[in-house]
């Protein structure tokens, strides 16, 4: 039997994002040179929400980019399946920008490694910070998040799914027994 547990509901997600938005502003002392880059697909919706919140707080619209990391994955060479490629859209230079990279779940860290390699191809950011809604542990690379919605200790055979209204019709974070090793 598959066990499912909701670990975060819509209000919880919203409160976490509000706090992260404040933390981003506090740490960067405002919106100067700040930009957000969401990692497809979950990170993009979270980035859009964070942008809206930051605009509401500061009255400034900061640039938002979308990143598809497929071409930078380290497992392409090893897998028979070629992941479907989606568009990357970063319509501004990253030179000297304070970039906040946004993803839904931080797990092994390999996605973030790929994303950072991709970002460097768009310029030389002043720095890159990382914001995630869930940090579930089990890092395989020396990577940590600067802003975390919720730390969620999990076992390797569980899967953590962030559902968002934009793609799933509901806002919740679910932890369930999966088939992962």
């Amino acid at each position: 039997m598959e066990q499912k547990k909701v670990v975060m509901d819509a209000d919880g997600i919203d409160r976490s994002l509000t706090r992260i938005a404040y933390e981003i502003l506090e740490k960067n002392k405002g919106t100067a040179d700040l930009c957000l880059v969401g990692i497809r697909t979950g990170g993009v919706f979270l980035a859009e929400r964070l942008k809206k919140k930051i605009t509401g707080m500061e009255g400034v619209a900061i640039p938002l980019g979308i990143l598809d990391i497929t071409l930078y994955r380290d497992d392409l060479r090893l897998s028979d399946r070629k992941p479907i490629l989606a568009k990357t859209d970063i319509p501004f230079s990253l030179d000297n920008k304070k970039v906040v990279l946004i993803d839904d779940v931080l797990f092994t860290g390999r996605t973030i490694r790929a994303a950072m390699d991709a970002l460097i191809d768009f310029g030389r950011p002043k720095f890159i910070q990382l914001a995630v809604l869930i940090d579930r542990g089990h890092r395989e690379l020396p990577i940590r998040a600067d802003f975390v919605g919720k730390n969620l200790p999990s076992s390797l055979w569980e899967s953590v799914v962030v559902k968002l209204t934009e793609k799933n019709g509901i806002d919740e974070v679910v932890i369930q027994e999966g088939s992962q090793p």
Partner: protein
Amino acid sequence: MELTKKDILGIKDLSVDEIKLILDTAESFIEISTREIKKVPTLRGKTVVNLFFEASTRTRTSFEIAGKRLSADTINISASTSSVVKGETLIDTARNLEAMNPDAIVIRHSAAGAPHMLARMVKQSIINAGDGAHEHPTQALLDMMTIKEKKGKISGLKVAIIGDISHSRVARSNIYGLTKMGAQVIVAGPAMMLPRDIEQMGVVVHNSLEKAIIGVDIIMMLRIQLERQQQKIFPSLREYSNYFCLNGQNIKLAKEDVLVMHPGPINRGIEIAPDIADGPYSVILDQVTNGVAVRMALLYLLIGGKS
């Protein structure tokens, strides 16, 4: 959806879903060519051999750039500088290349079916970059991508292909592709340049340019192959251009927002008037830009994974 084929030999063997996957993937690759650093690490350590037995600027350069922007190592071999001039057969050339372990071989050859023979013989992915008067699949894919980009769709559009249909691999691949994707294809050219029974490919046939382009969304002009002039297929270039040159006058018969395409190289003033080739209807250079993206997509889909 996934591309499970080893080779891309022709549009005839591609399904509608496979064409859609290639076009969607290609769309995502456009952005890379607009970056300051036009390179992604995806095909690092892979080798692509461009084996060209016929002259080419666009296609060969396009494949080379596509490979390089994906970080593959690309090697160009043209017949005139290879052992072919010493009498080596295609099969022997291919076996020797295979022994050096490339991941993909892109081949252009004057003999129809040459890429297919190679595909059966070697384990590497083969991409047909034009075989005789048979197929030129990457050209048709980049044409379809350009149409989709400019018109938002392919299905339901009327496309006229004008010129030497008999000897055109571009026409053949486009007829396969466009009809599969739901467009209506009209062909026109002098009678001796229209293959017999071409209607069986699902196209409407005309003997006049004017009749063919009435109300069409796209006009695809084919290059008149000057090298065939010796074969006396048509009386004179002047006569040909009198009847089959797209110009500022006859283009008014097409839709107001018609797109003019040409696979290149163009013969200015023969099949297309210079003001049309450089004019607002022309998407000829967009086709070239999209060509790089389509070829990146094919390389990614064919050799992007485990080899």
